[in-house]
């Protein structure tokens, strides 16, 4: 096994290359995918040609619609939405069409497609280019939602998403794109619906998504110096959700904290908290602590942006609150 370290961007691009070589039904469309704004699709056109790497006019809804139509008729499209925020432009197609026709046709139609979408706050992009909207896709039926936090996870999840027969939203946090991580040379897949324990601990179960996984790990290091051992779990996909891994951890810690960069109100944390209240009630020794972005438009100034988004300090405090060590 090699110890190669590559960036998140390279990992995603490798997933595309491998899957496009493997299956000629796979193609990519989106705005400027030939050049590749964030690099995940750059240079693919050279190998796969303009028929399989297609620049679209500036219209997210029709582009996602085209992906749905192509997916229903035998291809396996990947459509890129350049910024997560722009998913709302295509929300009608994603929510009302892509996720529903397999069911409505009683299985006669399949919609095997991926919506690849860089998202999240990186400082300086401001309103309209910085939101984390993954939780908005928990609500419509029929969709799967992946939120990788490392290059390794990104590659393995994207390959599975491309091979899945359902529409999969694939969120790439822009703060992670340039980060490096261990990715083996050998081919591997990560199934959708399998959480990863990023750090073991016995005192508190801390569920974190996407870019907040790293903040959670740093917070856990700090808390460890105070004798508090935090278990950090990255669910990796919100739908399907690996409830078992989280529950197993909770049966050890009895304390649950959930952090995401998406908005707290009605977010993934709200869903997980509801699951905890319904299904894991007897394993809660304290109220669930839920962290997310405040319900305000994301402002431009880096100082204001940081004030909206959960920080490492916020996570430390939430863990202490969970343990009754801070009100």
């Amino acid at each position, binding site marked *: 096994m090699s110890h190669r370290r590559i960036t998140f961007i390279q990992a995603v691009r490798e997933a595309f290359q491998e899957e496009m070589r493997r299956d000629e039904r796979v193609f990519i469309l989106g705005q400027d995918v030939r050049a590749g704004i964030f690099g995940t699709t750059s240079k693919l056109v050279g190998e796969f040609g303009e028929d399989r790497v297609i620049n679209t006019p500036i219209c997210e809804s029709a582009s996602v619609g085209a992906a749905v139509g192509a997916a229903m008729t035998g291809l396996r499209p990947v459509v890129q939405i350049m910024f997560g925020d722009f998913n709302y432009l295509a929300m009608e197609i994603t929510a009302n069409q892509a996720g529903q026709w397999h069911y409505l046709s009683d299985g006669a139609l399949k919609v095997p497609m991926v919506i690849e979408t860089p998202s999240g706050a990186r400082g300086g992009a401001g309103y309209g280019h910085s939101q984390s909207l993954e939780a908005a896709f928990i609500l419509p039926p029929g969709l799967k939602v992946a939120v990788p936090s490392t290059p390794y996870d990104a590659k393995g999840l994207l390959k599975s998403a491309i091979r899945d027969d359902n529409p999969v939203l694939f969120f790439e946090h822009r703060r992670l794109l340039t980060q490096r991580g261990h990715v083996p040379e050998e081919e591997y897949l990560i199934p959708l619906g399998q959480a990863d324990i990023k750090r073991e601990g016995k005192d508190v179960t801390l569920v974190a998504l996407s870019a907040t996984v790293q903040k959670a790990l740093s917070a856990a290091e700090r808390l460890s110096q105070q004798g508090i051992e935090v278990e950090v779990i990255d669910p990796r996909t919100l739908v399907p959700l690996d409830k078992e891994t989280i529950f197993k951890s909770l049966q050890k810690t*009895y304390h649950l904290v959930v952090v995401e960069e998406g908005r707290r109100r009605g977010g993934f944390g709200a869903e997980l908290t509801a699951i905890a209240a319904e299904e894991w*009630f*007897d*394993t*809660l*020794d*304290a109220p669930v602590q839920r962290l997310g972005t405040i319900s305000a438009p994301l402002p431009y100034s880096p100082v204001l942006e940081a004030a909206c988004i959960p920080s490492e300090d916020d996570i430390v405090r939430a863990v202490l609150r969970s343990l*009754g060590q801070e*009100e």
Partner: protein
Amino acid sequence: MATAITMPRWGMIMEEGRIVEWLKKEGDEIVVDDPILIVESEKVDNEVTAPAAGILKAIVVAEGETAAVGAVLAVIASPDEDAAAVAALLAQSSPPPAAEPPPAVTSAPPPPAPKPRRVNISPAARRMAEDKGIDWQSLEGSGPRGRIERKDVLRAIETAQSTPPGAKSIPLSPMRKAIARRTLQSIQAPQAALCRETDISQVLRFRHSLTAPDWTGDKPPTFTTLLVKAVAMALAAAPILNARLHDDAIWLDDNAHIGVVIAVEDGIVVPVIREANKKTLIEIATELNDLTQRARSGGLTSAEMEGGTFTISNAGPLGIDFFQALLYPPQVGALGVGRGRQRPVVVDGEIVIRTMSYFCVSSDHRVVDAEPIGRFLGKMDEIMQNPDVLLKRTV
């Protein structure tokens, strides 16, 4: 063949319609598609036309009335139609099955269960307590807002497991824990106890001689009632005893707020009679009676047990002769009263029989020396010998 005219459904949400007007009357001859009546739904007024030709035999729903979608409104039949066919159609009063929702499952709500005492406990702690047979209702929680958490249950389990053989482990009740805290707090104060044997014969006689308007009760006032009044008066002679110690300052109170120790089921409580110095015997008796009742039913508020400046503990009913009452910091004085016993005593050179009792003052030596206590007990003695002064309102 007889044909029913039924309430039509127009649009997706129509559930019923109102007959605005019948355009035909019973007996009229009808041609297919003839307008027969006008129906008003939530959205529109519209004509209903004849589905078949014949005679309008019967109108079932009158103008102005409302009928559900699918309900029979009228019947058209040929002139020679069998009356039974018409009647059969008229019997169809309910809408067709396609429009019917499945029957809702209903059941009577269960009778409300009696409300248990509300104790905050985390779900995980409760599950653990129930699994291990721990009575969590009696546990004290260490979490926020007193919530019982797993560690509290774990501690209770440990205690239960460490009980020596032959012994039964009873967890300390919240009240016992409060008493434990207060007594521990009390012994922090350097205390002295000074006693005086006091003749209470006069005051006992006085107790039974009271009449209206000085006393209106069925029974004579309790001895404790008289003590509260007497102490409030006697404290005026030794104001340093009617005080509270706060850090480096002594707070002297203008009024006497007298705590009275009351025994309840599993401990004691000390409610306070405020401004006892300004109250009549009747007022004190009424208040004390109310506080006692509520103390025994657990109905005292914490505010009613705070702010005392001096405390009385009457152990006479328990058969105690002589004891040192517990001091309640930050108060600096408490009076313990033992039981009254008839004894031979020498008065003016003669041996007489009198009812005697030991009055014993516990004090915080940081604030109070022997002299004011002597003065206070002397004043108490004086009042006991001249109980009529107890009828005075103000000191």
